[in-house]
Structure formats: structure tokens, C-alpha cells
């Protein structure tokens, strides 16, 4: 399902640990417009819990995640 997504923006948080991926996501989403899709790269295992929870709390749509080599891609649709 997440294979066919073309993101409008990509945020690379590889190597960063909690809470930086969430803070950077929050900041990037603030600059994007409604309906756009953000892709986040992260290596922090915590992001798998934190990002969906963050999206749920803030009302953005969490589209899913996909494991890549040594990191994970996360997709969020801006509300």
C-alpha cells in the first residue's frame, strides 16, 4: 500500500534519536500544505511508536511505514 506513494517532501532523520525525529516532523509539517505527503527516514526504533501516535494526536493521516536497508520510511498525509 505504501509502495505507490510519491511524497511531496522527504525528511531525513537517520541517526537522530528521540525526540528529534518527532520535532523535525512537527516543524516540517508546519511548512507544508493540506493534502501533501511527507516521507520521514528514521533509524530510531522509537519512531515506530511515536510517529503514528503523533499523527493520531495531531489529526494528520498516518499512511504507513516500510523497512528499507538499515532504516524505515514513514508516510504522513498533512491534514
Amino acid at each position, binding site marked *: 500500500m505504501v509502495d505507490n506513494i510519491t511524497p511531496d517532501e522527504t525528511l531525513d532523520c*537517520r541517526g*537522530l*534519536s*528521540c*525526540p528529534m525525529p518527532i*520535532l523535525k516532523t512537527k516543524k516540517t509539517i508546519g511548512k507544508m500544505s493540506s493534502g501533501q505527503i511527507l516521507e520521514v527516514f528514521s*533509524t530510531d526504533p522509537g519512531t515506530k511508536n511515536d510517529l503514528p501516535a503523533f499523527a493520531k494526536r495531531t489529526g494528520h493521516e498516518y499512511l504507513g511505514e516500510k523497512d528499507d536497508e538499515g*532504516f524505515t520510511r514513514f508516510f504522513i498525509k498533512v491534514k
Partner: protein
Amino acid sequence: MSENRESSVLGGILARGYSRIFFENWPMWVGGVLIGIMSVVTFAWARPWGVAGGLRNWGDWFFSVVGIYHHKPLSPVVSTNSILTFGLLWGAFVASLLSKQFSIRMAPPLELLKGIVGGIFMGVGAAMAGGCNVGGFYSALSALSFSAIAMMIGLLIGAFLGLKYLYWELEHLPSRPTGGTRASEHKEGFNWVQIEPYVGAFALLAALICAFMYNTQAYTRVGGLLLCGVAFGIIIQRTRFCFVRAFRDPFMTGEGEVARAICVSLFISILGFAALKWTGLRGESVYVSQAFWFGGLVGGIIFGIGMVVAGGCGSGSVWRAGEGQVKLMLAVICFALTTSLFKAFIKSSKGLTALMGHRVFLPDYITYKWTITGLLLFLFVYYLLATWNEETEKFTVEM
């Protein structure tokens, strides 16, 4: 034939159970409840749970070996402080292997620097407050020490200041990502991740053997504490239980889940500690440190800044180090060295020691009955506030 079927059914049950425990997320409140229970079990077995004391013991030991300290500290092999913290590290290592999450995670230079600076701040703060977020706050509040409340206020202020720094950094110091390489991943076609659970099971077995050996050497208490530490490590790694989030997230995203989990946890822990102390089974002064109010409050502020900058508190830095995060390994090392030095510095001066404050054991002032009632009410109000803030975001600080 049917025997085969039965064994495959059993295999299926075991496989599902394993995946439930090690591949799926545990709810945060389950972590809170389990930590509360383990906290009481640990105190009933020998002593309250702490993290910074172990780090200090390692720091003391290091400075004694290199010849800076002239007195010899208790050996890290038998010090209960050291064993608990070592167990936490070991347990987190085991759990991250069993869940295939262990890997040496390098961080960009700025992040490594934050680990070092955060570790130094935490070392100073913990020396002042009589412990980290665990020994100075969690176990201290369970032990009915009033300095825990001073440290809690300090931690909230410190977390707020630390978050202000993170916001500033986000605007002014963009840190470059490291890219997707894992240092532990060799490219020769050897799939390290697949064998992680076996290494994890072996490491767990090694911890059990160690505890057994302590037992045969008449150090049964120490061996038991090693297992308590391992249990804390596994619980905390699997729930990704993070005290920092309880203090930081209400300001950052408004999230109150961890704050509530800690309230639930403290409910259990306070009742257990109160029972053990009130009945005289454990000494009343245990974990009531001379930190009310200056040491607790100011130490809490410094510690709070440090934990937000490092991205891990006392327990949080240790379990993330066990998971392979290089930034938090640096934080743990700097924490251990600084807290040893700063504690020695405080102890060297009567004036400084007095400045940190007094022991305030609440039941001495307002009886056990009202202490327990008051603390549980206090936690209930904190629980409500965290939830209320989740809805209204009244305390949330904008970037």
C-alpha cells in the same frame, strides 16, 4: 500423526507468544504497572531501585583505578548499586536482541556532543538531588521522601528549559543525518539480525548463571538484584518507557500517556513501600536523602535540562545504551564520571553538604495515613492535569 499436530499447535502458541512479547508494542501503562510491581519486589528483596548510584560506583571505581581517588570504592561486582544498573543495561541488551532491535547506532557529531553535555548535566544534577529521576524522584517518592517533590518540580522546569533549547537548535543548528548505514551490519551476506534472538537468549541465560553463581558464593542478595535489574531492563526496553517523556511531552506535543503511566506506577510503588516501611520490615530512612529542598529542586532543574538534551534520563540513557545507541553510551559514561566527581566535591565541603538540604520523611511530620492519602491525591491531580492538557494543550509550548 496427532502427536505431530499437537506439537505444531504448541509450537504455534509459543511462536505467537514470542512475537507478542518481543515484536509487538506493549502499551505504556503496562510498563508503568510492571515497573511499579518490580519496584516493590526489589525493595522487599533488598533495597529500592536506583540507577545513578550504580553509575557513581563505576565512576568512583574508574577514578580509583587511575589513581585520582585514594580510597577504594566498593567493588562494582558486589556493590548493589552497581549490580542493579548493570542488570538494567544487560536486560535492555537482552530485550533488544530478542526483539531484533539491537544495532550500533551512530549519531551525527552534534548529537554526540549533546549526549556528552547532557550526561555531564545529569551527573551534576543527580549528585545534588541524591539520585537521578529514579533514585531522586521515583524511588524517593515511593520512599515517602519530600525531596522527591522538590526534584519533580525541578525536573518539570528543567524539561521546559531543555525543550526551549531543542527548539532553538532546530532553528539555528541543522544537524546532518548520518545516512542509512548501521555500523554493526557487515556486507558480506551474513545476516546478523536473524541470529540476534539466539544471542539474546544466550545473554539471558548468562545472567541467570551469574545470579546462580552469586548464590553459591553467599551473595544471594546481589544475585537477586542482578535479576531485578535485568527485569527492569526488559520491561523498560519493550515498553520504551521513558521518564523524560513524562516531563517533556506535556510541553512538547501535549502527549500525557507517559505521565499517566508514571502516576499509575507510583500508585503501586508508594503503597508497597509504605507497607514495607510502616510495618517496620524496612528502615524508615531508606532513600530519604538530604536533598530538601535546594539539592532536589536545583539538582532537578540541572538534571531535567540534561535529560532532554541527551534524550534519555538515568534509566533511559542506560537502556538506550544497551540497545546500541552511541549517543546515549557517551551520555552514560559522562554521567558516571561527572556524578562521581561532583558527589566527591559536595562531600568535601560541610557547607555544600548542608546547602543541599535536609532529610524530610513525610510520615514524621504528617503521619503515614496522611502522607499516603496526600501523595495518592497529588498523583491523581497530576494524572488529571496531564489528561486535561492533552485535550486543551494549555501547557504546550509552540516552536
